[in-house]
């Protein structure tokens, strides 16, 4: 028997892809790294996932879990010839309205869940810009954030329990409906582990009540510094908006061409702020935001008149990455985080780096929590371009770390930022993380090469691998 034959016995012919052309599309996600998908399997149940894991392990084939493939760091790319387990068919939703929770399959699309719970008065709070396409499984794997995570926190705060298949093919449930489970809280270990510890087959997520009132303000500035000062000013006044998003001029132009939402394309920076809550609080907070924006020389101050206008503004913001293609066929970005007080300084240096390398840069970011997305638009067909972009990206990350920031706010480390981990962690840190991983997955069958740089674990440096081990 071969792995292909056994998988076909298990799943049937249609749920195992072997044709080179079909496998080709599973060699890439939304990022720029291409891997080698040897086989692609589509389980529908937890039991099938467990069987797939046991089979793949028997045939010593690395396993990479994948949802919608909207990741930007290569997290779902089989860097070693491997089996891609696609979870899009596991998309059941069971809502428990009384407890405001839902058990969801990993393949449920983020926005589909919120659309389903909206008539009941609830939504799933983490709202990555790719929320119309990305899956909850991927959100959990990357501990995804989004514009509204400024107030609501990222995915980890919205996951109560996880069902996962371990490297042995066992099914494990971590956490439960209780807000504070007994013993070590392993949910926090698995959320954000990027598919390196197991395959999530189900999750119990928290549903957030829809706010009674909402106000979305569009402000624009002729200097980026004024926009940044407005961000700090708003938060200094004690207002934590539900979302606080900034776009620079180039980004605004690209976005406006797609949505025609009336974004001012002549402004150096556009700031999108949203406040939610009871009407009186919303009025008061919106007034403060307007005041701070005016103090900082806002050139535009507009409040979305209705839900349609609000939806259009957000559609613009959330389409930003895709709109970059109007400028160039490829883009590359890191989602570094810097302290809010360093926003202006970092931005200036980031633009300098791009200019020095002769690369077009567009900026769009979660300004409220200092989560930058400096986007470099380029054409990979141009010789040496990708190398130049990656060099610039590294410098850019170094600058962010230097001012006291972090590598990634929400996109994950994947393969893209793996080597950069050494900028933030020392050997002992990395070894400790590698040990945690090893305790879940001793043979490194799940998403090998991801997150931790080669050589993180001490034995990588000298100890021979154990018999039968995947390295």
């Amino acid at each position, binding site marked *: 028997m071969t792995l292909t034959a056994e998988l076909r016995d298990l799943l049937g012919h249609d749920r195992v*892809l072997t*044709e*080179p*052309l*079909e496998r*080709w*599309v*599973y060699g*890439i*996600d*939304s990022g720029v790294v291409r891997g080698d998908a040897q086989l692609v399997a*589509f389980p529908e149940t937890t039991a099938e996932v467990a069987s797939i894991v046991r089979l793949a392990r028997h045939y010593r084939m690395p396993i990479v879990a994948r949802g*919608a*493939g*909207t990741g930007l760091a290569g997290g779902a790319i089989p860097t070693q010839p491997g089996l891609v387990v*696609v979870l*899009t*068919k596991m*998309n059941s939703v069971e809502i428990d309205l009384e407890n405001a929770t839902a058990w969801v399959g990993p*393949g449920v*699309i983020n*926005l*589909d869940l919120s659309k389903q719970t909206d008539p009941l008065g609830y939504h799933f709070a983490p709202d990555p810009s*790719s929320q*119309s*396409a*990305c899956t909850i499984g991927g959100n959990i794997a990357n501990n995804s954030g989004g514009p509204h995570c400024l107030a609501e926190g990222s995915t980890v705060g919205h996951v109560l329990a996880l069902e996962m298949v371990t490297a042995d093919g066992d099914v494990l449930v971590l956490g439960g409906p209780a807000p504070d489970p007994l013993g070590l809280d392993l949910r926090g270990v698995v959320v954000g582990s990027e598919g390196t510890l197991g395959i999530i087959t189900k999750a119990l997520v928290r549903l957030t009540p829809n706010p009674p009132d909402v106000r979305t303000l569009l402000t624009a500035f002729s200097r980026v510094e004024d926009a940044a000062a407005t961000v700090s000013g708003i938060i200094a006044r004690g207002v934590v908006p539900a979302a606080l998003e900034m776009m620079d001029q180039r980004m605004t132009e690209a*976005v406006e*061409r*797609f949505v025609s939402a009336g974004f001012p394309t002549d402004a150096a920076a556009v700031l999108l702020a949203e406040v939610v809550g009871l009407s009186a609080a919303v009025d008061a907070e919106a007034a403060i935001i307007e005041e701070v924006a005016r103090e900082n020389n806002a050139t535009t101050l507009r409040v979305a008149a209705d839900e349609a206008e609000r939806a259009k503004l957000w559609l613009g913001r959330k*389409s*930003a*990455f*895709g*709109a*970059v*293609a*109007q400028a160039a*066929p*490829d*883009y590359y970005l890191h989602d570094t985080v810097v302290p809010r007080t360093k926003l202006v300084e970092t931005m200036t240096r980031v633009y300098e780096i791009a200019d020095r390398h002769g690369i077009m840069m567009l900026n769009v970011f979660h300004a409220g929590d200092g989560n930058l997305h400096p986007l470099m638009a380029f*054409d990979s*067909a141009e010789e040496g371009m990708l190398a130049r972009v990656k060099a610039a990206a590294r410098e850019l990350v170094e600058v962010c770390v230097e001012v006291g920031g972090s590598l990634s706010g929400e996109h994950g480390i994947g393969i893209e930022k793996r080597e950069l981990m050494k900028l933030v962690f020392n050997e002992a840190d990395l070894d400790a993380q590698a040990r945690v991983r090893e305790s879940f997955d001793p043979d490194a069958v799940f998403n090998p090469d991801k997150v931790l740089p080669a050589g993180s674990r001490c034995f990588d440096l000298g100890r021979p691998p154990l018999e039968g081990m995947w390295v």
Partner: protein
Amino acid sequence: MGWVTADAPTRSELAACIQCGLCLPHCPTFRLTGMESASPRGRLLMMSAVAEGYSEVNDVFDDLMGFCLQCRACEVVCPSLVPFGRAMEGARIEIAAQLASPVRRFRRLITGRWIGIPWVMRAVTRMARLVQRSVPARFLPPQVRTSIGGLRRLPKRPASSVGSTFTPIGLSGAGVAAVLAGCVMDPWFGDVHTATVEVLRRSGYRVVVPDGQTCCGALAAHDGDAQGTRRLAKRNLSAFASADLIVTDAAGCGAHLKEYGNWVGDAGEILASKVKDVTEVVAEAIADGRLPRLDVPRGKVAMQDPCHLRHAQRIVAEPRAVVAAAGYEPVEIDEVGMCCGAAGMYSMLHPKASRELGQKKADQVRASGSTLVASANPGCEMQLRGHLGGAYRVAHPVELYWEALQAADPTR
């Protein structure tokens, strides 16, 4: 071998996609399968695989491209503005050029040639009528079950409107509206044409159905028959050469006419700029008071948006304005306008996927609580009627308006 024709997907069309994936949830076949290879992004990647020499145009490529409905829902949500429909037509032309087969040649004969010959269509109509009258739908093969089952009652002697002229009634001075009769619209949907003509006359147009016109060529284009598509387009170019306004009452034809520029260059571009869907023209006439808003309430109507109206032509408000002016309350059935699965010849080539989508759409209509559905495209209409059965009525929005107009004042 890569591409061999000048119509192949171009480098800039393919490079426009940066694989963000926002199209995925809007793609009906991705929703059915959860598979990347059945998504717009995946299809563009596979076209790139051919362009870059990683893959040949082979049977697998044919199957994977053939599974696309060409509904173009992906284009609406694409922030990179990828012209997906054009790229897919290019890929289909490559398949037709590189993988000749008797079946494909036969299909090309139908969509590129026979469809443009009136006596052939009349003969087909008589045959279809015979089947319609004698064989219950459930005994028909799945490839044609919903389409024949969903046909309107076919006339014994299909009349043709081609060559006729109609004077304005009441008002005048709106100009001349040249109507595209279409290949199946003319023999099978005579009532829709009647409504179109009569409503246009009453909004002040002199209506002509120019001689020498033929099928728009959409089916040939969707099947990769570049030669047939151009041959049909050229005939229409000369038939409509003097027209200032070209009106269609089939969404698929309108979408294709509006893209003649891709097929026959500048002359096509000029023709395309004159094309309007009848709902656009009628909604405009209602808005500026040339046609009345009728205030007798007529109940609910479920709005089904044909993909080639909503996604390809971005026409959403107009059909709603037309039925509302007729006194109906338009009811939304689907926030994103997912394809009903008819998609031209798709229901015959992929009966299983077509049926699944058709059933979903029928369920959405049933959930709306209305037994009347408005749809502005013949394929969708047949699919809906086929899946909903006799208890439901499916009609063109302008038909509904014409009926209301007659009911309000029988002397008009």
